[in-house]
């Protein structure tokens, strides 16, 4: 029913979907794990193919378009552009890593767990691939629901309340966005079947008077801001990260967060240029405040997960600030940073997970001196941590450098203030490293064992990625050239 040919975008969406559904049918846990790992790896290969064949339009699904609800002008149209390739790759890359990293964990009712994981992957893919507003909204919600179940089923003590808050929060946001989508849709021109159209082209070419843009902007923005999250819409995040099972936290922070950023770049900026020009100051101010605020709070956290959560808020703040400068330099920075942030934070979670699995605690105050018994883990952590605070030759540096550079072009003073977060980041990260890994081991931590080989391999992969992207980031820029150019032309 999907028209003439199956293209890479469809594989990216439907393979995880089918894999997930199949997972529900498998009985024993071991084969569930194996199957989901294999399918995740296949997805990774597909996305690699999508990058390899990026100059081949047929495979990128640009031509493809299935009239889905033709009489209201919605179509099942998906396609890959630079940004899409980048983020689908991030998604495809992170899932195998996550599965490997948590391979040791055993869940009750594993098939449901892995099935939902794969479904959420499909949803994410859809978000990044769809070029139809309604379809986008569909996937936007679909990515959310499995995660909700994952968190509240396999999460920690206060999981139900925390994830419920998270769900209501994001659901409200997306409902507001739905109004926005419909309103914009009603302003679009007619297609051959319908009087309006949901297609991205139609949305991007719709002409809205500034007064309309100004309130529509906020409808969309709130949805994305909650997802990212931007101060002050962030309070769901630390609780959710803290309560979710490690694998889900990785998905949430590594990939899901990018949905917000992606949404802003793909939908908000092109549709409401005037409003963006009006409110960029507000948003950037919020983001900068958020950076400092979150960094300061991170200094006070005792739970590793919460610490990382707040640091993530700070990083995202920088991204959103950079986006809303609509400066080319900043946007290029955002592109690579989206990937880097994903890799780094997943690495962080993996380390935390490894510690918690062995010692059963995440409290910084209860840890210490792990470096004696687990030097490799320490080295990995230190590398990831320094990547997290954007040390040169790690992947995050290039991104942050360019984003700050773009922000500076926008305003020297914002940059000055935002720059303080660099220092604060160093403060809380080094505190964490010191208190968890250095010093002398206490009774609990002296029992820490060195991590296993396969864990070494996973962390090794991440570390290598960190350095590779940090030393030779050029491929990312080449990959996302087109998207950036497309945005920039609108704000010339």
């Amino acid at each position, binding site marked *: 029913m999907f028209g003439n040919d199956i293209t890479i975008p469809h594989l990216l969406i439907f393979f995880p979907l089918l894999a997930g559904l199949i997972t529900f049918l498998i009985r024993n846990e071991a084969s569930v794990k194996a199957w989901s790992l294999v399918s995740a790896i296949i997805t990774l290969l597909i996305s690699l193919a999508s990058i390899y064949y990026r100059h081949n339009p047929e495979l990128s699904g640009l031509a493809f378009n299935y009239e889905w*609800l*033709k*009489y*209201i002008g919605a179509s099942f149209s998906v396609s890959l552009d630079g940004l899409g390739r980048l983020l689908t790759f991030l998604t495809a890359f992170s899932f195998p890593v996550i599965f490997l990293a948590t391979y040791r964990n055993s869940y009750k009712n594993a098939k449901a767990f892995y099935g939902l994981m794969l479904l959420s992957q499909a949803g994410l893919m859809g978000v990044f691939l769809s070029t139809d507003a309604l379809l986008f*909204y*569909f996937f936007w*919600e*679909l990515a959310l*629901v499995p995660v909700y*179940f994952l968190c*509240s*089923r396999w999460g920690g003590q206060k*999981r*139900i309340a925390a994830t*419920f808050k998270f*769900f*209501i929060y994001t*659901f*409200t946001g997306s*409902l*507001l966005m*739905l*109004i926005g989508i*419909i*309103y914009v*849709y*009603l302003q679009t021109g007619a297609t051959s079947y319908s009087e309006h159209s949901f297609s991205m082209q139609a949305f991007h070419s719709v002409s809205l008077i500034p007064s309309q843009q100004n309130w529509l902007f906020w409808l969309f923005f709130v949805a994305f801001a909650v997802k990212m999250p931007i101060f002050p819409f962030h309070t769901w995040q630390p609780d959710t990260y803290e309560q979710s099972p490690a694998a889900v936290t990785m998905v949430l922070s590594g990939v899901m967060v990018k949905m917000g950023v992606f949404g802003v770049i793909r939908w908000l900026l092109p549709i409401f240029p005037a409003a963006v020009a009006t409110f960029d100051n507000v948003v950037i101010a919020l983001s900068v405040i958020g950076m400092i605020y979150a960094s300061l709070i991170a200094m006070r956290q005792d739970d590793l997960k919460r610490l990382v959560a707040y640091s993530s808020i700070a990083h995202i703040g920088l991204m959103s600030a950079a986006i809303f400068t609509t400066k080319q330099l900043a946007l290029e920075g955002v592109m690579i940073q989206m990937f880097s942030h994903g890799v780094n934070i997943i690495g962080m979670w993996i380390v935390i997970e490894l510690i918690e699995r062995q010692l059963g605690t995440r409290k910084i105050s209860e840890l210490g001196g792990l470096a004696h018994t687990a030097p490799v883990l320490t080295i990995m952590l230190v590398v990831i941590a320094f990547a997290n605070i954007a040390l040169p030759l790690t992947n995050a540096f290039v991104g942050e450098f360019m984003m700050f550079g773009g922000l500076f072009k926008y305003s020297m003073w914002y940059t000055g203030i935002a720059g303080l977060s660099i220092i604060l980041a160093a403060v809380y990260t080094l505190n964490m490293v010191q208190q968890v890994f250095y010093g002398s081991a206490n009774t609990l931590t002296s029992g820490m064992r060195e991590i296993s080989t396969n864990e070494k391999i996973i962390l090794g992969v991440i570390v290598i990625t960190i350095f590779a992207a940090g030393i030779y980031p050029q491929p990312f820029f080449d990959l996302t050239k087109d998207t950036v150019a497309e945005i920039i032309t609108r704000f010339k």
Partner: protein
Amino acid sequence: MNAIILTAVWGIVMMFGGVFFKSKATPKYWAIAGLAAIIIANCLELQTGEPFFALDVKYMLSFNSFNLTFITVTLASTLLFFLLSGRDIEKVGANVSEYFALIFFVLCGVCLAATFNTLLILFLGIEIMSIPLYILTGTDKRNLKSNEASLKYFLMGAFSTGIMLMGIAFIYGGNSEGSFFINNIVLGEGKMPVMIAIGMVFIMIAMSFKVSAAPFHFWTPDVYDGAPTVFTSFMATIVKIGGFIAFIRLFENSFGKVHGQWQMLIAIIAAATLFIGNVTAVFQQSVKRMLAYSSIAQAGFMLLAIFALNDTAKEGLILYSAAYSLATIGLFAILIKMHDYTIEGFNGLAKQQPVLAVTATIFLLSLTGIPLTAGFQGKFFMLMAALKDGHQHWLVLFAVLCAAVSAYYYFKIIQAMFFKEGSQQIKADGSVAALAEDITPAFKLLLIITALLIIILGIFPSFLTEWLHYLNG
């Protein structure tokens, strides 16, 4: 036409069947068979436009693709209701076939309400819909709550009938033609005559009462709570959407020309309904009562269709009705099987009855309006219609905020089923007491089919809305 006549006739058949049927189970099969036949007849009429009986009704009825599609939806929902809850109807009391007969009469009333062309038929249709319900509500004779419910329902229903008649009288007096035909009640675009306006408000109130819109909803929770759960399910779905079709047809044909003059009232009613329904549902402990409030809340969303009153609204109303009925019937069907109607009663259901839990989840998601379920399509069309209309954007905003609130209480059940540990007492022989009883494989299968229907409608609403494009819609 087919539907009206056949439902009436089959009602009579069931009635006399009560004398001959030996086994308690027989009426169910007759009812199901008959209803299936009626649905087919109706679909044929929908496609060909040719009823079996060429009755001259003097233009008192009008049949078009919208009405007939709608009738199909209601009949199909009823069939599903029979299939899912037939066994529970038998449990209510002795005279099973009478219950079925009454239900068929209600259906006849719904068909009239869907096709009326004069206020007289509207009045008769509404009454034919209501009177059997007063009885069905009271069928659990031993149960005081059931008695009270039926009494309240009856008194307030009669009260609303009075109001409606007053309105009809004023309308009759007000229009120069002195006609009851809904199409020539308001002729000009200009300001309505005062008498027409008064009559319209009266009728609007009466209809709001029938669809339980605030502030005329007060009977709903008590009645739904008191009535036997099977019949609550029937009332909350088929009858309610029957009321809606009457509502929208009346106001579209009679007062459509002066839409702008009364839109505000509907906006207020809708807002009030959304608010009261959603907010009050939050606190409810009994799932049955919560579903009563949720049905009020959903009515608030459906009122958006009457607020907008454009083609999208009509498509949306059909979608919404279908989605809402499917989900609610399914939920009630599960609820009936439960021992404990409180939310705690659902704790840990996912372990004992995974199928029930999963399907219930899909129903709840549909009611919440999560994409990939029919409920989303319904809400989506409603919002689109309201925005298309272009007035009172605040109402749309308010509606989605209320939808967010609705997620709050629907998900409480999901949480109970999946994430809470069951607090069932261990029986003497050490086995865990079952949360739900007599779950047959067929029942599960039907639930799964319902869930699939919801999902299919959620992805391809066109399967339903394309019916509108038969005949000269």
